[in-house]
């Protein structure tokens, strides 16, 4: 199996606090990998380093074998690393059509076009239409994002990440704020991605995690506690003690 995304001895401190400690993670290509751990364990911080929002103090980040630790955020996206945010990061004044349109244009390298008008490329239009349909956003495509219901916004958040056609997709609590009845829809969309797309999921909803992941890493205080297939992690007494508690987990 090839490794899609890998960190080597990643270190990150905030002031005196070591938030990522000598972290070496390997995520195989096509994996459905989950990253769990107590609050403040440093999961979001890891994602932020992977995507370039934060700079690690030391360590390497390899995307498909190439070191991307020094690339700026947007270059990593163009290399196929895309993410969603724990708290929605959308463009309040733009419409879903524009939001997704931008993401598609950037990926196809038309983002810098300053002379050709938006909406005049049929390949881009086709792709936008496809995404809007897939995420049930077609009916609201001309509404301002701020005015959309939360659920739609959450869908848009994920649609934007997928519009970048990532080879590795990082999902930070994608189900946050989404009601139980709709959680599985979101994961269904993610699940329907091509098998060679690698997905890393952060989530506190154990039902979701265990129904989705084929491999789980547990992060505690910035360091890797354990890693393995879901059954093994669910049974691990250490994981139970620091994270799962007594909750019954369906594996």
């Amino acid at each position, binding site marked *: 199996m090839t490794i899609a995304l890998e960190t080597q001895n990643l270190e990150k401190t905030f002031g005196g606090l070591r938030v990522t400690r000598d972290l070496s993670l390997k995520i195989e290509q096509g994996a459905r990998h989950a990253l769990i751990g107590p609050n403040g364990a440093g999961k979001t911080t890891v994602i932020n380093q992977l*995507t*370039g*929002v934060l700079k690690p103090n030391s360590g390497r980040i390899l995307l498909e074998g190439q070191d991307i630790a020094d690339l*700026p*955020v*947007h*270059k990593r*996206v*163009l290399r196929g690393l*895309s*993410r969603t*945010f724990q708290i929605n*990061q*959308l*463009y*309040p*004044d*733009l419409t879903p*059509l*524009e*939001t997704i*349109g*931008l*993401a598609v*244009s*950037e*990926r196809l390298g*038309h*983002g*810098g*076009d*300053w*002379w*050709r*008008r*938006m*909406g*005049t490329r*049929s390949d881009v*239009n*086709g792709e*936008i*239409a*496809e995404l*809007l*349909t897939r995420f049930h956003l*077609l009916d609201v*495509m*001309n509404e301002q994002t701020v005015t959309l219901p939360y659920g739609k916004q959450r869908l848009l958040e994920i649609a*934007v*990440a997928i*519009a*970048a056609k990532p080879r590795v997709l990082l999902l930070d609590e994608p189900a946050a704020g989404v009601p139980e009845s709709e959680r599985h829809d979101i994961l269904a969309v993610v699940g329907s991605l091509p098998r060679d797309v690698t997905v890393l999921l952060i989530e506190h909803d154990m039902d979701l995690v265990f129904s989705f992941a084929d491999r789980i890493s547990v992060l505690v205080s910035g360091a890797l506690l354990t890693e393995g297939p879901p059954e093994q992690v669910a049974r691990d007494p250490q994981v139970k003690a620091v994270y799962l508690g007594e909750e019954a987990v369906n594996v």
Partner: protein
Amino acid sequence: MTASSDVGFHAQRQARWHYGEFAFWLVVLACGFLFPTRYLIMTDILRLALFAMSLDLILGYAGIVSLGHAAFFGVGAYAAGLLALHGIINEPVLALIVAGLAAMVLGFATSFLVIRGVDLTRLMVTLGIALLLEALAERFSNITGGTDGLQGIEMQPIFGEIPFDMFGKAGFFYSLAVLFVLFLFARRIVHSPFGLSLRAIKNNPLRAAAIGIPVNRRLIAIYTLAAFYAGIAGALFTQTTAIASLDVFAFERSADLMLVLVIGGTGYLYGGLVGAVVFRMLQELFSTITPQYWQFWIGLVLVVIVLVGRQRLHRWVLYVPNLVIKQVAGRKSVVAVPESDA
């Protein structure tokens, strides 16, 4: 209609010309024939409008605030003045472009200082740059004429054919032509993916980067372009007034500009044009009534504008045009109402 062509249709929605826009430009052109004695003030408004449009490009679209936009205006003004004074380039249109490019170079150089930081920082850094340039222009008085400004500028005819006249007629139509061409250019740009990406950056830079937009490069590009526009406005100023003096760099010029744009509304290109008209007319009106205390009344108007709310005012002001257009075209609101600002 398929979903794809539907998407294409809606994506181009904003880029299509509205009737209101045609009407707007026709009215502007008509003014040139209706008020032959007021060319000067109208030229002044056109210059200010162009200058405000330049600020709108960075403020309304990319969300970069600036209190030092006069820096580029000033460089354009002095460049045009020096070119004419020393007979380096005698043809005004060519000189205009060269002056714009000079401002653009400065814009590019300073853009690196401006893209960092929060609003307040940007305000102060841009302001500082403009003040520094003013001080420099004062210090190098052998080139700039110091506080006296450049003296003895004489403009050659446009294209060697049309001379600038004392009543400002040539100046007016010249300025109008320049403004219109640059407006078309700006309009094209803001409706391109590039323009849309600027709005995305203004809305949420973090997300913009996370979909692959090279944020800094885009900001530098638009800042540089805006500097070009401002430089052109400055050069127009020198060419139509035959004056270039230190106050082209003045803080007041940048501050007025901000007021113009805030009055007119940002992010729809017409804001600068509308604001320039409103602001100058008010100034003219009040300073005719009371040359000493006109600032009081301008101040009062600003306060009222804010308290009543720009949105509401726009609705009132555009009520009649929209009503007419609705009758004629059978469409909903056609004259754009600006979105909120940064």
